[in-house]
């Protein structure tokens, strides 16, 4: 889970307390390996494929995916980062700050952009990301890779590549990192 969400998800603040380990480190690695193969299969290789990691939860995941893609195909996939704070639809409704770096060095026009995030929840971050991407060019296609799809969508958005579908309650919190996926909640 991104630091920002840890601080900003209602009820604001609190401490994350894990209840269950959903995936361990080896299972995360296997899931990302499978996703890497699926990305290659879907796009018939890695030509024009670009990874764009959503700040901050997607960055470490994208780094791992990039390494796996290189191991499998021997191709160094361009990777960027994107902070969507300035594109969110809840600006003014809750504290929103662009705290992390957006770094997209290449024109995305004609590219196949794979958005990478740790958790897919309401879909609002992805909606903001789709808006943001159009300011960097017109990609040929945009695909979405997430480690966990936890449901509760509020917009018609679906992932293309999923590590694990995880049924959750709305008030639960999912924490994804390379060492594993934890399910728990925020306690004051």
């Amino acid at each position, binding site marked *: 889970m991104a630091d920002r969400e840890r601080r900003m998800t209602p009820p604001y603040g609190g401490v994350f307390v894990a209840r269950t380990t959903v995936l361990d480190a080896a299972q995360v690695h296997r899931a990302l390996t499978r996703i890497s193969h699926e990305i290659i299969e879907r796009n018939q290789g890695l030509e024009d494929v670009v990874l764009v990691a959503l700040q901050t939860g997607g960055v470490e995941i994208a780094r791992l995916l990039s390494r796996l893609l290189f191991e499998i195909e021997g191709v160094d996939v361009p990777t960027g980062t994107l*902070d969507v*704070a*300035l*594109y969110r639809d809840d*600006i*003014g*409704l*809750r*504290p*929103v*700050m*662009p705290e992390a*770096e*957006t*770094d997209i060095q290449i*024109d995305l026009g004609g590219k196949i952009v794979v958005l990478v995030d740790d958790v897919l929840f309401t879909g609002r971050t992805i909606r903001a990301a789709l*808006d*943001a991407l*159009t*300011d*960097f*060019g017109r990609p040929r296609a945009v695909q979405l890779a997430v480690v966990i799809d936890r449901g509760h969508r509020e917009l018609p958005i679906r992932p293309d590549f999923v590590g694990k579908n995880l049924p959750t309650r709305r008030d639960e919190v999912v924490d994804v990192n390379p060492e594993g996926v934890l399910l728990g909640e925020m306690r004051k």
Partner: protein
Amino acid sequence: MSNHLINLADLDRDAIRELLHLTDRFVEVSQRPIPKVPALRGRTIAMVFFEDSTRTRMSFDLAAKRLSADVIDFPTHTSSLSKGESLQDTAETIGALGVDALIIRHSSGGLPGEIAEAVGETISVINAGDGLNAHPTQGLLDAYTLCQHFHGSAGIEASLSGIHVGIVGDVKHSRVARSDLAVYRSLGAKVTIVAPPELQPTDLDNWPVDITDDLDEVLPTLDVVGLLRIQKERMGETVVNSIDDYIERYGVTESRANRMNDNLVILHPGPVNRGIEIADTVLDKRANVLVNQQVTNGVAVRMAVLFRLLGSGVEID
């Protein structure tokens, strides 16, 4: 503090650092193929300029538009003010129109602060320069430009520690100098005021800085020369005995520029009096003149201020 930006001297170091770090983000936005974000869509910002301004006004205008805010112009020359309406009533009327922020420049020091108190929390007031008092966004953009030059960016803990800045020129009549001083000191820079005795500030007791009238004496120790504009229109009668004498002692002439150390950088808030504060040849040819970076960064700094006050949902404290 509040949802206003009136004077950098009111902000603590953390608040200044947060604005500078936020500026890093908007510098990046400004470099995108489409340098515009929807963050302040639906917000309306009124420009209330009682004093002439070209660059500050354009910079705020551009900053607001790059955040997708709507900008309206309050025509100060033909408005109801000239029909006798009080400034406060006018400000409240603008607020009743549904405006979210007022960007105010006025020749009277302290006026934006008074308006901010009058309108309270409902509207953000941003000081775009008031009399001899303050010009907070200029102070921020000067500090940001130095952070960028010396460290690449502001980062989370912006600092000018170890940097010696000379503020050179008409300090007495300069709101830029006052805001620069506040922000430089907050970030840990050493500041020396360099001005002829008649242009040194009279409120010096409150200024814990070194002061001298001899530029050449301090020049070897300076990392930054922050030039101020000779403000002929603000000085009334001739205070400076002779422009030639001023140039001789304080102007960045070709020969003085040759004596500066290679790493020294020069700031100027503009507009430049060419041939007075700085020689044409120095202004146009030297890489260490950061005037254009100041103008570019000014837009990003003002985006940061506007977003912080109108969009982030977090108050400046």
